[in-house]
């Protein structure tokens, strides 16, 4: 095993180009577990800790450019306004110690369906900034997950940042685990309201081979909200709409039975979380609308 310690992003890209099998390590919260338990012996470890810019973020007009290694703790503390869904998701990651080390780049690189950030990224809308010595490209989050623990990165590419749309409406995130802290998701659900485009987006974790959106559910809800004039009248979403949305979210799952939970439970739980997060976000939207518009 060789330990590569690039001092800059350019050096990191060069190293990855020279050694495409090199395994990037930043927070170490996935890679080191695999090494400690003898599940993996990479030829090269590519340490990204010395590349300081990976731990920085920029808040732009439309989106936040979030460095791949920005620790979850920082997202929780600093980006709750811009990225509320991701901030909530970050708070569910493992433990304080892990949140101090791990970042979204690691979740994306590992591309485990159980990664906590994925549903929030899918719901908010995001692009992954991948770079190699050949150049930079932005991969839409919907095209990023290609299979169980597989992603759209080329062997010589590294994740530099994620561009996440700034919230234009309420966002929520829920995760089911069998412990009240420090737990891997049995399944998870992210929901973002986008009042500017009058759309909703979803993200489902741990209930399919990859993180997925519940597109049929989104389309249904977009249409129902539109038809009922809900975005304007700010009415309570009817239980039948919420139920239909929840059912369609359940139907978007393609889960398995494993030690953490059964497939049918995952489908069920995703439906419950979909209904609850819809209620929370919509109530928040109504409250905000009422406040800003001065309507009782």
């Amino acid at each position, binding site marked *: *095993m*060789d*330990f590569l*310690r690039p001092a800059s992003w350019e050096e990191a890209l060069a190293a990855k180009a020279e050694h495409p099998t090199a395994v990037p*390590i930043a*927070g*170490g*919260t996935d*890679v*080191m*577990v695999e*090494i*400690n*338990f003898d599940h993996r*012996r990479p030829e090269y*470890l590519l*340490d990204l*800790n010395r590349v300081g810019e990976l731990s920085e973020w920029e808040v732009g007009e439309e989106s936040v450019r979030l460095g791949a290694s920005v*620790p979850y*703790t*920082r997202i929780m*503390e600093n980006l709750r306004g811009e990225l509320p869904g991701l901030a909530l998701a970050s708070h569910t990651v*493992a*433990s*304080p*110690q*892990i949140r*101090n*080390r791990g970042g979204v780049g690691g979740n994306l690189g590992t591309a485990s369906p159980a990664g906590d950030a994925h549903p929030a990224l899918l719901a908010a809308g995001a692009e992954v900034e991948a770079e190699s010595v050949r150049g930079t490209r932005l991969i839409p989050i919907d095209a990023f997950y290609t299979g169980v623990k597989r992603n759209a990165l080329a062997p010589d590419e590294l994740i530099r940042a994620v561009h996440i749309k700034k919230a234009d409406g309420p966002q929520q995130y829920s995760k089911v685990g069998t412990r*009240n*802290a*420090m737990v891997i998701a049995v399944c998870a659900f992210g929901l973002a309201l986008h009042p500017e485009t009058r759309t909703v987006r979803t993200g489902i974790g741990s209930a399919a081979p990859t993180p997925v959106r519940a597109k049929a559910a989104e389309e249904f809800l977009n249409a129902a909200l539109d038809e009922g004039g809900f975005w304007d009248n700010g009415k309570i979403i009817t239980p039948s709409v919420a139920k239909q949305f929840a059912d369609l979210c359940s139907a978007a799952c393609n889960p398995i039975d494993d030690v953490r939970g059964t497939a049918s439970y995952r489908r069920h739980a995703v439906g419950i979380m979909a209904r609850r997060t819809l209620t929370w976000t919509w109530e928040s939207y109504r409250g905000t609308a009422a406040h800003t518009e001065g309507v009782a």
Partner: protein
Amino acid sequence: MRVNFTVNGRPQEADDVWEGESLLYVLRERLGLPGSKNACEQGECGSCTVRLDGVPVCSCLVAAGQVEGREVVTVEGLAEFAKQRAEHGGCATGSCGTSLDEARRWESKPQDSHTGEGGELSPIQQAFIDAGAVQCGFCTPGLLVAADEMLERNPTPTDADIREALSGNLCRCTGYEKIMDAVRLAAARQSEAV
């Protein structure tokens, strides 16, 4: 490979380090600092918690090569760390939240981390003893580092705050009640001292 870094204020050099070794292994097996504990080696118990550039992390998940040039504080250096913090004003103002950035700027001074001698205990260490929060003690070092850092950020925590801050540290002996007592005790003594 060779790794140079600072532990408890003292420069350290580890040689012939295998690239897959963790910071925890280097501390325990190469530097004679076994206070940080090897309970799960997968980031699920917090027993190996140390401060890396001021930030509490699981040292089992930090690759040894990643600590080159960085500052580590272990339980062996906790008393001295707390003493210096107190001398530097620490929490005296009552507004002693420490951000990750501020924490990273902290620098330690040398002390004899091998014997831990010359040492008074830090307030959190004393509180753990007094409250009966120590049984087998294997979780204790990690809990102390985590609890000390929490009290640095949040000197008047609610019970829910304490539970959240320590939710990454497993204890199998105590049922956590005496650990809660210890942290409350340390917080109360801290505020009395102001």
